[in-house]
């Protein structure tokens, strides 16, 4: 293992992460050994009431029950299959590690879990195409489930720098996503993942894919096959659109994968469809309805010729809990109209006195166009008098704020929007 220099404050945070349950670790141990019996799996599960209940509930869901009622854990194990059970056990027995929102990556609630499941499906399928020394496919699956666990820990240290991560590309020779993580925090998600996995006392074979899934060529020779499986599994999951957040498809592909796999275009094309089919089959049963996955961020347009004034409004909104929204900033009415043509704006904050096109003219224009007239407008006026306020309200402004505005004014002005 190469030397890692994880900053102390981050290392400390890892120790505080919820532990994965004993049951999940024991299942990993059993399933990753080539020869094991179904009874061994059942014995472990039966000792955990919570997991048993959850597995029975999923086994009885529409996607798996096929009209039968499944009342024993034996039947549930047969019906769901070992891999899916492993997946459910890891997801159910690690607190909210996989589920929580990862703000540093712009990852929504559950995004890490969806990406991990897809990577697991993909790593398992691709392990069947390894030319020499194919790894145990269940091990590839489990490694896929756990490969990005470090993201759950690193996210909070990236919040300030996530904009830098946004621009990372996947061109060869360019800076990689992991490099930028290193620059911003002094460590990266593969190093942290490795430490978490060690902390959780996971089987040793699982440590290497977690550590090297973005740099598979650096993995020790005897672990290269499984590491490449997870590397490609991760890339395939990204091709389906299910990355974790803003890293999307910007991860580098190690082109040496051709030395390990018998993989041509047709294989790959069908793999992409197969893993998405499998994901769609299980998603409703284990992840809940698709509607829950959609996060509708609001887009807020701030129009003011003073950069400081725009920043103040933005900060106030962020403090009031609007930190996940998208902010667009325009210096005058003309720029604002341009933004309105290109972005689905939900709320407009506008100053009145601005060069080129002032606030009143902007308000009149917005209210005259059917596609914009329903967007609520908050106007900020330096002429703090009743007549002006009345005039603006007649134009269709929802709220008028007098300068100087306080954070409370701003927050109250958009309550309920």
């Amino acid at each position, binding site marked *: 293992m190469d030397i890692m220099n994880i900053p102390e404050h981050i290392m400390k945070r890892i120790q505080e992460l919820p532990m994965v349950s004993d049951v999940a670790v024991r299942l990993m141990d059993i399933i990753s050994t080539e020869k094991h019996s179904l009874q061994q799996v059942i014995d472990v599960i039966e000792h955990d009431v919570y997991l048993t209940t959850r597995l029975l509930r999923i086994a009885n869901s529409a996607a798996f029950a096929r009209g039968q009622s499944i009342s024993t854990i034996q039947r549930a194990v047969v019906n769901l299959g070992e891999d899916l059970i492993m997946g459910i056990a890891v997801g159910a027995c690690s607190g909210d590690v996989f589920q929580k929102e990862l703000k540093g990556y712009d990852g929504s609630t559950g995004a890490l879990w969806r990406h991990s499941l897809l990577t697991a499906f993909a790593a398992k399928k691709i392990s069947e195409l390894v030319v020499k020394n194919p790894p145990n496919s269940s091990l590839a699956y489990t490694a896929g489930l756990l490969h990005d666990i470090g993201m759950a820990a690193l996210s909070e240290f990236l919040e300030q720098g996530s904009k830098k991560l946004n621009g990372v590309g996947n061109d060869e020779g360019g800076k990689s996503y992991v490099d930028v993580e290193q620059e911003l925090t002094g460590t990266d998600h593969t190093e942290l993942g490795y430490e978490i996995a060690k902390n959780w006392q996971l089987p040793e074979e699982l440590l290497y894919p977690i550590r090297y899934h973005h740099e598979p060529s650096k993995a020790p020779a005897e672990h290269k096959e499984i590491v490449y499986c997870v590397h490609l599994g991760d890339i395939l999951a990204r091709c*389906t*659109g299910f990355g974790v957040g803003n890293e999307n498809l910007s991860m580098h592909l190690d082109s040496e994968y051709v030395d390990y796999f018998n993989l041509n275009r047709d294989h790959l094309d069908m793999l992409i469809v197969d893993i998405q089919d499998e994901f769609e089959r299980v998603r409703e049963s284990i992840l809940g309805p698709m509607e829950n996955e959609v996060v509708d961020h609001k887009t807020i347009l701030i129009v003011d010729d003073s950069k400081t004034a725009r920043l103040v409004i933005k900060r106030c909104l962020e403090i009031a809990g609007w930190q996940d929204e998208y902010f667009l900033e325009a210096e005058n009415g003309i720029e604002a109209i341009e933004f309105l043509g290109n*972005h689905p704006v939900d709320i407009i904050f506008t100053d009145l006195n601005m060069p080129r096109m002032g606030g009143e003219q902007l308000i009149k224009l917005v209210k005259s166009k059917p596609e914009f007239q329903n967007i609520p407008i908050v106007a900020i006026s330096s002429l703090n008098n009743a007549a002006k306020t009345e005039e603006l309200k007649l134009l269709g402004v929802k709220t008028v704020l007098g300068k100087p505005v306080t954070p409370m004014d701003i927050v109250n002005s958009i309550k309920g929007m």
Partner: protein
Amino acid sequence: MNYIYVGIGDYVVSRDSEVVIRTMALGSCVAIIIRDLKTNLVTLGHIALPDSSINARRALEKPASFADTGIHAMLTDLRLAGYSGNGSLEVKLAGGASILDPNNTFNIGKRNLLAIRRCLWQHKLGAIAEHVGGNISRNVSVEVATGKTIIASPGKGSWIL
């Protein structure tokens, strides 16, 4: 508003003004949106692969898995729903992201886009707006009433196509 979600290889045709059609996380997949300006019919297909010859059975079961069979099925259903075939269609495309691969195996997004453009040309159609390629994942939603198409991407905000 009622949301209809279109999974991989599926397509939807609607003229219900209360409906918004959506796709989740388009990576290398491409959403084809076709709107008939005369009848306000909208169809959205979630295309996964360039060519149906790879899996004929799937092409029958889920034609919109492939560019060729998908576009054919979408246009056929538009006609069945009332499109008179008189050239009043507006096409938009979104998706088709790629991972850079010197071996040219993982460039599914690029291959999807090429195949889709070719199939559209064969039907004498071309896109009036596109947000395609690159290395970002996209969510797309289309308001049937207005045809307004919005794209969103994690960390990148949302914009109108």
